[in-house]
Protein backbone atom coordinates (compact mmCIF):
# COMPACT_ATOMS: atom_id res chain seq x y z
CA UNK A 1 0.00 0.00 0.00
CA UNK A 2 1.49 3.28 -1.03
CA UNK A 3 0.65 6.50 0.73
CA UNK A 4 1.96 8.67 -2.07
CA UNK A 5 -1.46 9.24 -3.56
CA UNK A 6 -2.67 10.98 -0.41
CA UNK A 7 0.15 13.51 -0.43
CA UNK A 8 -0.19 16.90 -2.06
CA UNK A 9 0.68 16.93 -5.76
CA UNK A 10 4.00 18.41 -6.77
CA UNK A 11 3.93 22.08 -7.65
CA UNK A 12 5.68 24.19 -10.21
CA UNK A 13 7.13 27.70 -10.28
CA UNK A 14 6.30 30.14 -7.49
CA UNK A 15 3.72 27.71 -6.15
CA UNK A 16 6.51 25.53 -4.83
CA UNK A 17 7.13 28.02 -2.06
CA UNK A 18 3.47 28.23 -1.01
CA UNK A 19 3.96 26.07 2.09
CA UNK A 20 6.85 28.13 3.32
CA UNK A 21 4.96 31.34 2.60
CA UNK A 22 1.84 30.22 4.44
CA UNK A 23 3.73 28.97 7.49
CA UNK A 24 5.72 32.22 7.66
CA UNK A 25 2.50 34.19 7.31
CA UNK A 26 0.92 32.19 10.11
CA UNK A 27 3.90 32.82 12.41
CA UNK A 28 3.86 36.56 11.67
CA UNK A 29 0.11 36.71 12.34
CA UNK A 30 0.57 34.84 15.60
CA UNK A 31 3.15 37.41 16.68
CA UNK A 32 0.83 40.26 15.67
CA UNK A 33 -2.01 38.62 17.56
CA UNK A 34 0.16 38.53 20.69
CA UNK A 35 1.27 42.16 20.27
CA UNK A 36 -1.90 43.94 19.21
CA UNK A 37 -4.98 44.76 21.20
CA UNK A 38 -6.22 47.61 23.35
CA UNK A 39 -2.66 47.70 24.76
CA UNK A 40 0.05 47.38 22.14
CA UNK A 41 3.16 45.51 23.22
CA UNK A 42 6.59 45.89 21.58
CA UNK A 43 7.26 43.27 18.91
CA UNK A 44 10.74 42.28 20.01
CA UNK A 45 9.80 41.85 23.65
CA UNK A 46 6.69 39.84 22.73
CA UNK A 47 8.78 37.55 20.58
CA UNK A 48 11.28 37.10 23.40
CA UNK A 49 8.41 36.36 25.77
CA UNK A 50 7.29 33.53 23.49
CA UNK A 51 10.84 32.17 23.46
CA UNK A 52 10.97 32.43 27.27
CA UNK A 53 7.78 30.44 27.58
CA UNK A 54 8.93 27.60 25.38
CA UNK A 55 12.63 27.43 26.23
CA UNK A 56 12.51 28.55 29.85
CA UNK A 57 14.86 31.48 29.19
CA UNK A 58 14.46 34.95 30.75
CA UNK A 59 15.17 37.30 27.87
CA UNK A 60 11.97 39.32 27.79
CA UNK A 61 11.79 42.59 29.67
CA UNK A 62 8.01 42.76 29.83
CA UNK A 63 6.56 43.38 33.26
CA UNK A 64 4.31 40.91 35.04
CA UNK A 65 1.14 42.66 33.90
CA UNK A 66 2.17 42.60 30.25
CA UNK A 67 3.21 38.95 30.50
CA UNK A 68 -0.17 38.17 32.03
CA UNK A 69 -1.94 39.91 29.13
CA UNK A 70 -0.04 37.71 26.71
CA UNK A 71 -0.44 34.39 28.46
CA UNK A 72 -3.80 34.81 30.17
CA UNK A 73 -5.67 36.65 27.42
CA UNK A 74 -4.06 36.71 24.03
CA UNK A 75 -2.31 33.35 23.79
CA UNK A 76 -5.40 31.13 24.44
CA UNK A 77 -7.39 33.29 22.08
CA UNK A 78 -4.72 33.02 19.40
CA UNK A 79 -4.63 29.25 19.67
CA UNK A 80 -8.42 28.99 19.51
CA UNK A 81 -8.49 31.27 16.46
CA UNK A 82 -5.93 29.06 14.69
CA UNK A 83 -7.82 25.82 15.32
CA UNK A 84 -11.31 27.14 14.72
CA UNK A 85 -10.20 28.96 11.56
CA UNK A 86 -8.59 25.79 10.25
CA UNK A 87 -11.60 23.70 11.23
CA UNK A 88 -14.11 26.02 9.56
CA UNK A 89 -12.08 26.26 6.35
CA UNK A 90 -11.63 22.48 6.22
CA UNK A 91 -15.32 21.78 6.73
CA UNK A 92 -16.16 24.42 4.13
CA UNK A 93 -13.84 22.87 1.55
CA UNK A 94 -15.26 19.40 2.15
CA UNK A 95 -18.89 20.55 2.15
CA UNK A 96 -18.37 22.26 -1.18
CA UNK A 97 -16.83 19.05 -2.54
CA UNK A 98 -19.62 16.92 -1.12
CA UNK A 99 -22.30 19.04 -2.77
CA UNK A 100 -20.08 19.42 -5.86
CA UNK A 101 -20.89 23.05 -5.61
CA UNK A 102 -18.57 25.95 -4.79
CA UNK A 103 -21.38 27.92 -3.15
CA UNK A 104 -22.36 25.19 -0.69
CA UNK A 105 -20.93 26.79 2.42
CA UNK A 106 -22.06 25.39 5.80
CA UNK A 107 -23.13 28.90 6.76
CA UNK A 108 -25.15 29.57 3.66
CA UNK A 109 -26.93 26.23 3.38
CA UNK A 110 -27.99 26.38 7.02
CA UNK A 111 -25.73 23.82 8.69
CA UNK A 112 -24.20 26.43 11.00
CA UNK A 113 -27.67 27.73 11.91
CA UNK A 114 -28.76 24.17 12.65
CA UNK A 115 -25.73 23.66 14.87
CA UNK A 116 -26.40 27.05 16.46
CA UNK A 117 -29.97 26.02 17.20
CA UNK A 118 -28.78 22.84 18.89
CA UNK A 119 -26.28 24.78 20.98
CA UNK A 120 -28.84 27.45 21.94
CA UNK A 121 -31.26 24.81 23.17
CA UNK A 122 -28.48 23.24 25.21
CA UNK A 123 -27.41 26.58 26.73
CA UNK A 124 -30.91 27.55 27.82
CA UNK A 125 -32.62 24.30 28.67
CA UNK A 126 -29.86 22.00 29.91
CA UNK A 127 -28.01 22.47 33.22
CA UNK A 128 -25.12 24.94 33.00
CA UNK A 129 -22.80 22.66 34.97
CA UNK A 130 -22.74 20.18 32.10
CA UNK A 131 -22.54 22.77 29.33
CA UNK A 132 -18.95 21.86 28.35
CA UNK A 133 -20.36 18.52 27.24
CA UNK A 134 -23.96 19.20 26.24
CA UNK A 135 -23.31 22.24 24.07
CA UNK A 136 -20.90 20.55 21.59
CA UNK A 137 -23.06 17.43 21.39
CA UNK A 138 -26.25 19.40 20.80
CA UNK A 139 -24.48 21.56 18.21
CA UNK A 140 -23.22 18.43 16.45
CA UNK A 141 -26.71 16.92 16.39
CA UNK A 142 -28.23 20.14 15.10
CA UNK A 143 -25.61 20.35 12.36
CA UNK A 144 -25.98 16.69 11.43
CA UNK A 145 -29.75 16.77 11.13
CA UNK A 146 -29.59 19.92 9.03
CA UNK A 147 -26.95 18.51 6.67
CA UNK A 148 -28.90 15.32 6.10
CA UNK A 149 -32.10 17.27 5.55
CA UNK A 150 -30.56 19.77 3.13
CA UNK A 151 -28.72 17.05 1.24
CA UNK A 152 -31.90 15.06 0.79
CA UNK A 153 -33.80 18.15 -0.32
CA UNK A 154 -31.25 19.37 -2.82
CA UNK A 155 -30.59 16.07 -4.57
CA UNK A 156 -31.92 16.38 -8.09
CA UNK A 157 -32.96 13.71 -10.59
CA UNK A 158 -29.71 13.63 -12.52
CA UNK A 159 -27.64 13.01 -9.41
CA UNK A 160 -26.36 16.55 -8.97
CA UNK A 161 -27.40 18.97 -6.28
CA UNK A 162 -29.49 21.96 -7.15
CA UNK A 163 -27.95 25.28 -6.07
CA UNK A 164 -31.32 26.94 -5.97
CA UNK A 165 -32.75 24.42 -3.53
CA UNK A 166 -29.55 24.49 -1.47
CA UNK A 167 -29.75 28.22 -0.97
CA UNK A 168 -33.49 28.20 -0.33
CA UNK A 169 -33.06 25.37 2.16
CA UNK A 170 -30.49 27.57 3.89
CA UNK A 171 -33.03 30.38 4.09
CA UNK A 172 -35.65 28.02 5.52
CA UNK A 173 -33.32 26.55 8.12
CA UNK A 174 -31.99 29.97 9.14
CA UNK A 175 -35.55 31.29 9.56
CA UNK A 176 -36.62 28.27 11.57
CA UNK A 177 -33.61 28.26 13.88
CA UNK A 178 -33.85 32.06 14.18
CA UNK A 179 -37.38 31.69 15.48
CA UNK A 180 -36.48 28.97 17.97
CA UNK A 181 -33.36 30.84 19.13
CA UNK A 182 -35.57 33.89 19.58
CA UNK A 183 -37.92 31.86 21.73
CA UNK A 184 -34.97 30.52 23.73
CA UNK A 185 -33.80 34.10 24.29
CA UNK A 186 -37.27 34.98 25.50
CA UNK A 187 -37.41 32.26 28.15
CA UNK A 188 -33.71 32.31 29.12
CA UNK A 189 -32.51 33.46 32.54
CA UNK A 190 -30.05 36.33 32.80
CA UNK A 191 -26.88 34.30 32.72
CA UNK A 192 -27.94 32.11 29.81
CA UNK A 193 -29.18 35.20 28.00
CA UNK A 194 -25.79 36.89 28.18
CA UNK A 195 -24.00 33.78 27.03
CA UNK A 196 -26.49 33.28 24.22
CA UNK A 197 -26.24 36.82 22.90
CA UNK A 198 -22.45 37.05 22.85
CA UNK A 199 -22.08 33.60 21.49
CA UNK A 200 -24.65 34.21 18.75
CA UNK A 201 -22.40 36.83 17.19
CA UNK A 202 -19.37 34.61 17.20
CA UNK A 203 -16.55 35.40 19.58
CA UNK A 204 -13.20 33.94 20.52
CA UNK A 205 -13.55 35.46 23.98
CA UNK A 206 -14.47 32.21 25.64
CA UNK A 207 -11.15 30.50 24.90
CA UNK A 208 -10.33 28.07 27.69
CA UNK A 209 -8.32 24.89 27.95
CA UNK A 210 -11.28 22.64 27.16
CA UNK A 211 -12.31 24.48 24.03
CA UNK A 212 -8.72 24.81 22.79
CA UNK A 213 -7.93 21.12 23.26
CA UNK A 214 -11.23 19.99 21.85
CA UNK A 215 -10.90 22.11 18.72
CA UNK A 216 -7.21 21.23 18.29
CA UNK A 217 -7.88 17.51 18.46
CA UNK A 218 -10.91 17.74 16.19
CA UNK A 219 -8.93 19.80 13.71
CA UNK A 220 -6.09 17.28 13.64
CA UNK A 221 -8.37 14.24 13.32
CA UNK A 222 -10.47 15.85 10.59
CA UNK A 223 -7.38 16.88 8.67
CA UNK A 224 -5.98 13.35 8.76
CA UNK A 225 -9.30 11.77 7.85
CA UNK A 226 -10.09 14.20 5.04
CA UNK A 227 -6.59 13.89 3.62
CA UNK A 228 -6.99 10.13 3.24
CA UNK A 229 -10.26 10.81 1.40
CA UNK A 230 -8.71 13.45 -0.88
CA UNK A 231 -8.38 11.22 -4.00
CA UNK A 232 -11.96 10.02 -3.52
CA UNK A 233 -13.14 13.61 -3.13
CA UNK A 234 -11.42 14.53 -6.38
CA UNK A 235 -13.18 11.66 -8.15
CA UNK A 236 -16.43 12.70 -6.48
CA UNK A 237 -16.24 16.12 -8.16
CA UNK A 238 -16.67 14.38 -11.54
CA UNK A 239 -20.09 13.14 -10.45
CA UNK A 240 -21.48 10.43 -8.23
CA UNK A 241 -21.84 7.85 -10.99
CA UNK A 242 -18.32 8.55 -12.23
CA UNK A 243 -16.92 8.19 -8.72
CA UNK A 244 -18.72 4.87 -8.33
CA UNK A 245 -17.23 3.63 -11.61
CA UNK A 246 -13.81 4.60 -10.28
CA UNK A 247 -14.26 2.06 -7.51
CA UNK A 248 -15.35 4.40 -4.72
CA UNK A 249 -18.00 3.35 -2.24
CA UNK A 250 -19.99 6.51 -2.80
CA UNK A 251 -22.77 5.94 -0.27
CA UNK A 252 -20.28 5.25 2.50
CA UNK A 253 -18.12 8.22 1.53
CA UNK A 254 -21.07 10.59 1.55
CA UNK A 255 -22.29 9.41 4.93
CA UNK A 256 -18.80 9.66 6.44
CA UNK A 257 -18.24 13.14 5.08
CA UNK A 258 -21.64 14.37 6.26
CA UNK A 259 -21.16 13.02 9.78
CA UNK A 260 -17.53 14.10 10.14
CA UNK A 261 -18.22 17.60 8.82
CA UNK A 262 -21.18 17.94 11.16
CA UNK A 263 -18.85 17.03 14.04
CA UNK A 264 -16.39 19.69 12.86
CA UNK A 265 -19.01 22.41 12.50
CA UNK A 266 -20.66 21.35 15.77
CA UNK A 267 -17.40 21.64 17.72
CA UNK A 268 -16.54 24.97 16.09
CA UNK A 269 -19.98 26.43 16.74
CA UNK A 270 -20.07 25.25 20.32
CA UNK A 271 -16.65 26.76 21.03
CA UNK A 272 -17.08 30.15 19.42
CA UNK A 273 -20.63 30.60 18.19
CA UNK A 274 -21.41 31.17 14.56
CA UNK A 275 -18.45 32.65 12.69
CA UNK A 276 -19.55 32.99 9.11
CA UNK A 277 -17.84 33.16 5.73
CA UNK A 278 -14.43 31.69 6.69
CA UNK A 279 -15.66 28.36 5.34
CA UNK A 280 -16.83 30.00 2.13
CA UNK A 281 -14.02 32.45 1.41
CA UNK A 282 -10.95 30.40 2.27
CA UNK A 283 -11.46 27.34 0.03
CA UNK A 284 -12.33 29.73 -2.79
CA UNK A 285 -9.15 31.72 -2.39
CA UNK A 286 -7.11 28.52 -2.36
CA UNK A 287 -8.89 27.11 -5.42
CA UNK A 288 -8.43 30.37 -7.30
CA UNK A 289 -4.66 30.30 -6.79
CA UNK A 290 -3.81 26.59 -6.52
CA UNK A 291 -6.62 24.73 -8.30
CA UNK A 292 -9.28 22.41 -6.88
CA UNK A 293 -7.15 19.29 -6.19
CA UNK A 294 -8.21 18.18 -2.69
CA UNK A 295 -4.82 16.73 -1.84
CA UNK A 296 -3.55 20.31 -1.80
CA UNK A 297 -6.76 22.18 -1.08
CA UNK A 298 -7.46 20.67 2.34
CA UNK A 299 -4.12 21.36 4.01
CA UNK A 300 -3.77 24.80 2.46
CA UNK A 301 -7.33 25.73 3.37
CA UNK A 302 -6.64 24.79 6.98
CA UNK A 303 -3.54 27.01 7.06
CA UNK A 304 -5.25 29.90 5.28
CA UNK A 305 -8.33 29.60 7.49
CA UNK A 306 -6.15 29.85 10.59
CA UNK A 307 -4.40 32.97 9.24
CA UNK A 308 -7.62 34.65 8.14
CA UNK A 309 -9.50 34.11 11.39
CA UNK A 310 -6.46 35.37 13.34
CA UNK A 311 -6.40 38.51 11.23
CA UNK A 312 -10.14 38.98 11.69
CA UNK A 313 -9.73 38.57 15.45
CA UNK A 314 -6.91 41.12 15.56
CA UNK A 315 -9.25 43.44 13.70
CA UNK A 316 -12.02 42.72 16.19
CA UNK A 317 -9.74 43.76 19.05
CA UNK A 318 -8.13 46.79 17.43
CA UNK A 319 -10.85 48.48 15.33
CA UNK A 320 -12.89 49.88 18.22
CA UNK A 321 -10.29 49.56 21.00
CA UNK A 322 -10.66 49.55 23.94
CA UNK A 323 -14.10 48.13 23.10
CA UNK A 324 -14.12 44.79 21.30
CA UNK A 325 -16.18 43.64 18.32
CA UNK A 326 -17.42 40.05 18.09
CA UNK A 327 -15.16 38.39 15.50
CA UNK A 328 -18.22 37.03 13.67
CA UNK A 329 -19.14 40.58 12.72
CA UNK A 330 -15.67 41.18 11.27
CA UNK A 331 -15.69 37.99 9.19
CA UNK A 332 -19.17 38.87 7.94
CA UNK A 333 -17.94 42.34 6.98
CA UNK A 334 -15.15 40.76 4.91
CA UNK A 335 -17.11 37.74 3.75
CA UNK A 336 -20.45 39.14 2.65
CA UNK A 337 -18.95 41.37 -0.08
CA UNK A 338 -16.86 38.39 -1.19
CA UNK A 339 -19.99 36.30 -1.49
CA UNK A 340 -21.61 39.06 -3.55
CA UNK A 341 -18.51 39.06 -5.76
CA UNK A 342 -18.87 35.29 -6.28
CA UNK A 343 -22.50 35.75 -7.23
CA UNK A 344 -21.61 38.41 -9.78
CA UNK A 345 -18.87 36.20 -11.17
CA UNK A 346 -21.19 33.22 -11.51
CA UNK A 347 -24.28 35.21 -12.44
CA UNK A 348 -24.42 33.82 -15.92
CA UNK A 349 -24.26 30.22 -14.80
CA UNK A 350 -26.61 30.68 -11.86
CA UNK A 351 -29.29 32.57 -13.74
CA UNK A 352 -29.99 29.54 -15.90
CA UNK A 353 -31.02 27.48 -12.87
Amino acid sequence: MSYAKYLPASLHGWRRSIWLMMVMLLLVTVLLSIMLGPMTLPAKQSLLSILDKFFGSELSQLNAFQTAIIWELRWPRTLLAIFIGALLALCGAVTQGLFRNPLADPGIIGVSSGAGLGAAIAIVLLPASLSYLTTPVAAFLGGLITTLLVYRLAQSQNGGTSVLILLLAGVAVAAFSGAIIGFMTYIANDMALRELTLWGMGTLNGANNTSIWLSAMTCLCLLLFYQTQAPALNAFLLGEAEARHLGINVEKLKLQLIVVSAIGIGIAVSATGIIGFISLVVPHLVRMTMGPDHRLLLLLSALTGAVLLLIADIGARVLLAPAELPVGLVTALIGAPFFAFLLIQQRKRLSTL
Partner: protein
Amino acid sequence: MLTIENLLVKQEHHQILNLPAASLVSGELIAVLGPNGAGKSSLIKTICGEWSASQGQIYLHGKSLEYWHRQRLAKHLGVLPQASQLSFPFKAQEVVAIGATPLSLNIREINHAVQKWMQATDTWQFADRLYTSLSGGERQRVQLARVLLQLSQAELAPLLLLDEPTSAQDLGQQHQLLNLVKSLCQENGFAVISILHDLNQASRYADKVWLLHQGELIAQGSPPQVLKPETVMKIWGYQPELFFNRHGQQILV
Protein backbone atom coordinates in the same frame (compact mmCIF):
# COMPACT_ATOMS: atom_id res chain seq x y z
CA MET B 1 -16.30 -12.36 -21.43
CA LEU B 2 -19.60 -10.55 -20.74
CA THR B 3 -22.70 -12.69 -20.49
CA ILE B 4 -26.17 -11.35 -19.84
CA GLU B 5 -28.85 -13.81 -18.75
CA ASN B 6 -32.58 -13.16 -18.38
CA LEU B 7 -32.02 -9.51 -17.62
CA LEU B 8 -35.16 -7.65 -16.61
CA VAL B 9 -35.13 -4.04 -15.43
CA LYS B 10 -38.24 -2.44 -13.99
CA GLN B 11 -38.86 1.00 -12.62
CA GLU B 12 -42.09 1.66 -10.78
CA HIS B 13 -43.68 -1.50 -12.16
CA HIS B 14 -42.87 -0.37 -15.65
CA GLN B 15 -40.62 -2.65 -17.64
CA ILE B 16 -37.83 -0.72 -19.30
CA LEU B 17 -35.46 -3.45 -20.37
CA ASN B 18 -35.77 -7.13 -21.25
CA LEU B 19 -32.70 -9.03 -22.45
CA PRO B 20 -33.15 -12.83 -22.41
CA ALA B 21 -29.59 -13.52 -23.55
CA ALA B 22 -26.67 -11.55 -24.94
CA SER B 23 -22.93 -11.89 -24.78
CA LEU B 24 -19.72 -10.55 -26.18
CA VAL B 25 -16.16 -11.75 -26.31
CA SER B 26 -12.93 -9.85 -25.86
CA GLY B 27 -11.92 -7.87 -28.93
CA GLU B 28 -15.50 -7.28 -29.98
CA LEU B 29 -17.08 -3.89 -30.61
CA ILE B 30 -20.83 -3.87 -30.14
CA ALA B 31 -22.98 -1.02 -31.38
CA VAL B 32 -26.22 -0.56 -29.48
CA LEU B 33 -28.80 0.94 -31.78
CA GLY B 34 -32.41 1.93 -31.43
CA PRO B 35 -34.69 4.95 -31.44
CA ASN B 36 -34.94 7.37 -28.51
CA GLY B 37 -36.37 5.74 -25.42
CA ALA B 38 -35.53 2.23 -26.63
CA GLY B 39 -33.56 1.51 -23.45
CA LYS B 40 -30.03 2.05 -24.76
CA SER B 41 -28.86 4.21 -21.85
CA SER B 42 -30.74 1.96 -19.42
CA LEU B 43 -28.73 -0.98 -20.74
CA ILE B 44 -25.43 0.84 -20.13
CA LYS B 45 -26.56 1.96 -16.68
CA THR B 46 -27.58 -1.57 -15.75
CA ILE B 47 -24.36 -3.18 -16.93
CA CYS B 48 -22.21 -0.70 -15.02
CA GLY B 49 -24.26 -1.18 -11.87
CA GLU B 50 -25.79 2.27 -11.61
CA TRP B 51 -29.23 0.69 -11.88
CA SER B 52 -29.95 -2.68 -10.39
CA ALA B 53 -31.78 -5.36 -12.32
CA SER B 54 -35.02 -6.73 -10.93
CA GLN B 55 -34.16 -10.10 -12.35
CA GLY B 56 -31.31 -11.86 -14.13
CA GLN B 57 -27.55 -11.90 -13.97
CA ILE B 58 -24.63 -10.21 -15.66
CA TYR B 59 -21.33 -12.06 -15.66
CA LEU B 60 -17.97 -10.48 -16.40
CA HIS B 61 -15.23 -13.03 -17.01
CA GLY B 62 -17.49 -15.71 -15.61
CA LYS B 63 -18.13 -13.95 -12.31
CA SER B 64 -21.37 -12.20 -11.48
CA LEU B 65 -20.85 -8.44 -11.33
CA GLU B 66 -22.22 -8.33 -7.79
CA TYR B 67 -19.30 -10.41 -6.56
CA TRP B 68 -16.56 -8.33 -8.12
CA HIS B 69 -14.49 -6.35 -5.66
CA ARG B 70 -15.23 -2.66 -6.11
CA GLN B 71 -11.70 -1.60 -6.94
CA ARG B 72 -10.88 -4.59 -9.09
CA LEU B 73 -14.06 -3.99 -11.07
CA ALA B 74 -13.02 -0.38 -11.62
CA LYS B 75 -9.82 -1.62 -13.27
CA HIS B 76 -11.81 -3.77 -15.70
CA LEU B 77 -14.98 -1.83 -16.37
CA GLY B 78 -14.85 1.73 -17.65
CA VAL B 79 -17.81 3.96 -18.44
CA LEU B 80 -17.80 7.06 -20.60
CA PRO B 81 -20.91 9.06 -19.68
CA GLN B 82 -22.72 11.15 -22.25
CA ALA B 83 -21.99 14.42 -20.49
CA SER B 84 -20.20 15.20 -17.25
CA GLN B 85 -21.08 18.02 -14.94
CA LEU B 86 -17.91 19.34 -13.37
CA SER B 87 -18.10 22.84 -11.97
CA PHE B 88 -14.62 23.01 -10.44
CA PRO B 89 -11.72 24.47 -12.40
CA PHE B 90 -9.56 21.38 -12.92
CA LYS B 91 -7.04 21.40 -15.73
CA ALA B 92 -7.78 18.88 -18.48
CA GLN B 93 -4.79 16.77 -17.47
CA GLU B 94 -5.88 16.74 -13.83
CA VAL B 95 -9.24 15.33 -14.90
CA VAL B 96 -7.45 12.57 -16.80
CA ALA B 97 -5.20 11.84 -13.81
CA ILE B 98 -8.28 11.20 -11.65
CA GLY B 99 -8.64 8.05 -13.77
CA ALA B 100 -5.73 6.65 -11.77
CA THR B 101 -7.78 6.62 -8.54
CA PRO B 102 -8.26 2.81 -8.44
CA LEU B 103 -4.76 2.09 -9.74
CA SER B 104 -1.46 1.65 -7.95
CA LEU B 105 0.79 3.95 -9.91
CA ASN B 106 3.36 6.42 -8.65
CA ILE B 107 3.28 10.06 -9.69
CA ARG B 108 5.78 9.63 -12.52
CA GLU B 109 3.88 6.69 -13.97
CA ILE B 110 0.63 8.62 -13.72
CA ASN B 111 2.09 11.63 -15.56
CA HIS B 112 3.44 9.33 -18.22
CA ALA B 113 0.10 7.54 -18.67
CA VAL B 114 -1.80 10.84 -18.73
CA GLN B 115 0.36 12.06 -21.59
CA LYS B 116 0.01 8.77 -23.46
CA TRP B 117 -3.77 8.66 -23.34
CA MET B 118 -4.22 12.37 -23.97
CA GLN B 119 -2.12 12.04 -27.09
CA ALA B 120 -4.16 9.01 -28.16
CA THR B 121 -7.41 10.93 -27.76
CA ASP B 122 -6.02 14.07 -29.41
CA THR B 123 -6.36 16.17 -26.27
CA TRP B 124 -2.72 16.65 -25.22
CA GLN B 125 -2.56 20.07 -26.88
CA PHE B 126 -4.94 21.51 -24.29
CA ALA B 127 -3.66 19.54 -21.29
CA ASP B 128 -3.12 22.74 -19.29
CA ARG B 129 -6.38 24.43 -20.18
CA LEU B 130 -9.25 24.40 -17.71
CA TYR B 131 -11.76 21.62 -18.27
CA THR B 132 -14.59 24.08 -17.74
CA SER B 133 -13.37 26.15 -20.69
CA LEU B 134 -13.38 23.26 -23.18
CA SER B 135 -16.06 22.58 -25.77
CA GLY B 136 -18.43 19.63 -25.42
CA GLY B 137 -16.49 17.44 -27.82
CA GLU B 138 -13.16 18.26 -26.19
CA ARG B 139 -14.56 17.44 -22.75
CA GLN B 140 -15.85 14.12 -23.99
CA ARG B 141 -12.41 13.20 -25.34
CA VAL B 142 -10.75 14.25 -22.09
CA GLN B 143 -13.20 11.99 -20.26
CA LEU B 144 -12.37 9.17 -22.67
CA ALA B 145 -8.67 9.61 -21.90
CA ARG B 146 -9.54 9.40 -18.19
CA VAL B 147 -11.49 6.17 -18.66
CA LEU B 148 -8.71 4.63 -20.79
CA LEU B 149 -6.18 5.49 -18.09
CA GLN B 150 -8.48 3.83 -15.56
CA LEU B 151 -8.42 0.60 -17.61
CA SER B 152 -4.68 0.66 -18.21
CA GLN B 153 -3.84 -1.78 -15.39
CA ALA B 154 -6.43 -4.42 -16.26
CA GLU B 155 -5.21 -8.00 -15.79
CA LEU B 156 -8.06 -9.49 -17.81
CA ALA B 157 -9.54 -8.01 -20.96
CA PRO B 158 -11.37 -4.81 -19.92
CA LEU B 159 -14.91 -3.83 -20.85
CA LEU B 160 -15.55 -0.28 -22.03
CA LEU B 161 -19.06 1.19 -22.10
CA LEU B 162 -19.54 4.28 -24.26
CA ASP B 163 -22.72 6.33 -24.07
CA GLU B 164 -22.93 8.19 -27.39
CA PRO B 165 -19.19 8.91 -27.63
CA THR B 166 -19.57 10.69 -30.96
CA SER B 167 -22.52 12.93 -30.13
CA ALA B 168 -20.52 16.13 -29.60
CA GLN B 169 -17.63 15.45 -32.02
CA ASP B 170 -17.17 16.82 -35.51
CA LEU B 171 -17.07 14.35 -38.39
CA GLY B 172 -13.30 13.88 -38.48
CA GLN B 173 -13.08 13.40 -34.74
CA GLN B 174 -15.93 10.90 -34.77
CA HIS B 175 -13.94 8.66 -37.07
CA GLN B 176 -10.69 9.28 -35.22
CA LEU B 177 -12.36 8.30 -31.95
CA LEU B 178 -14.00 5.18 -33.35
CA ASN B 179 -10.72 4.17 -34.99
CA LEU B 180 -9.00 4.48 -31.61
CA VAL B 181 -11.68 2.36 -29.95
CA LYS B 182 -11.48 -0.17 -32.77
CA SER B 183 -7.72 -0.48 -32.44
CA LEU B 184 -8.05 -0.96 -28.66
CA CYS B 185 -10.34 -3.88 -29.43
CA GLN B 186 -8.05 -5.39 -32.00
CA GLU B 187 -4.70 -4.80 -30.32
CA ASN B 188 -5.46 -4.71 -26.59
CA GLY B 189 -8.39 -7.11 -26.48
CA PHE B 190 -10.87 -4.53 -25.19
CA ALA B 191 -14.54 -5.39 -25.40
CA VAL B 192 -16.63 -2.34 -26.16
CA ILE B 193 -20.34 -1.64 -25.98
CA SER B 194 -21.13 1.69 -27.55
CA ILE B 195 -24.39 3.50 -28.13
CA LEU B 196 -24.33 4.97 -31.63
CA HIS B 197 -26.84 6.87 -33.69
CA ASP B 198 -25.39 6.68 -37.17
CA LEU B 199 -26.26 3.32 -38.75
CA ASN B 200 -23.42 3.53 -41.25
CA GLN B 201 -20.87 4.25 -38.53
CA ALA B 202 -22.17 1.16 -36.78
CA SER B 203 -21.81 -0.86 -40.00
CA ARG B 204 -18.31 0.41 -40.54
CA TYR B 205 -16.85 -0.09 -37.06
CA ALA B 206 -18.98 -2.55 -35.11
CA ASP B 207 -18.53 -6.31 -35.17
CA LYS B 208 -22.05 -6.80 -33.96
CA VAL B 209 -25.18 -4.76 -33.53
CA TRP B 210 -27.67 -5.02 -30.69
CA LEU B 211 -30.95 -3.53 -31.82
CA LEU B 212 -33.24 -2.33 -29.04
CA HIS B 213 -36.86 -1.32 -29.43
CA GLN B 214 -39.19 -0.45 -26.56
CA GLY B 215 -36.88 -2.11 -24.07
CA GLU B 216 -36.64 -5.38 -25.97
CA LEU B 217 -33.55 -6.72 -27.69
CA ILE B 218 -35.20 -7.48 -31.03
CA ALA B 219 -32.14 -8.39 -33.09
CA GLN B 220 -28.46 -9.08 -32.66
CA GLY B 221 -25.85 -10.05 -35.18
CA SER B 222 -23.47 -8.59 -37.71
CA PRO B 223 -24.47 -5.16 -39.06
CA PRO B 224 -25.62 -6.36 -42.54
CA GLN B 225 -27.71 -9.10 -40.92
CA VAL B 226 -29.50 -6.73 -38.59
CA LEU B 227 -29.65 -3.47 -40.47
CA LYS B 228 -31.93 -4.41 -43.35
CA PRO B 229 -33.97 -1.66 -44.98
CA GLU B 230 -37.25 -3.26 -43.84
CA THR B 231 -36.01 -3.44 -40.22
CA VAL B 232 -35.03 0.23 -40.35
CA MET B 233 -38.47 1.04 -41.76
CA LYS B 234 -40.15 -0.89 -38.98
CA ILE B 235 -38.16 0.69 -36.15
CA TRP B 236 -37.28 4.20 -37.22
CA GLY B 237 -40.19 4.68 -39.60
CA TYR B 238 -38.32 5.68 -42.73
CA GLN B 239 -37.46 3.68 -45.81
CA PRO B 240 -33.70 3.86 -46.49
CA GLU B 241 -32.04 3.14 -49.79
CA LEU B 242 -29.41 0.46 -49.79
CA PHE B 243 -26.06 0.87 -51.56
CA PHE B 244 -22.86 -1.11 -51.52
CA ASN B 245 -19.40 0.44 -51.57
CA ARG B 246 -16.47 -1.04 -53.47
CA HIS B 247 -15.53 -3.23 -50.50
CA GLY B 248 -19.00 -4.73 -50.58
CA GLN B 249 -20.07 -3.01 -47.34
CA GLN B 250 -23.66 -1.89 -47.21
CA ILE B 251 -24.59 1.77 -46.89
CA LEU B 252 -28.02 2.96 -45.84
CA VAL B 253 -29.07 6.40 -46.98
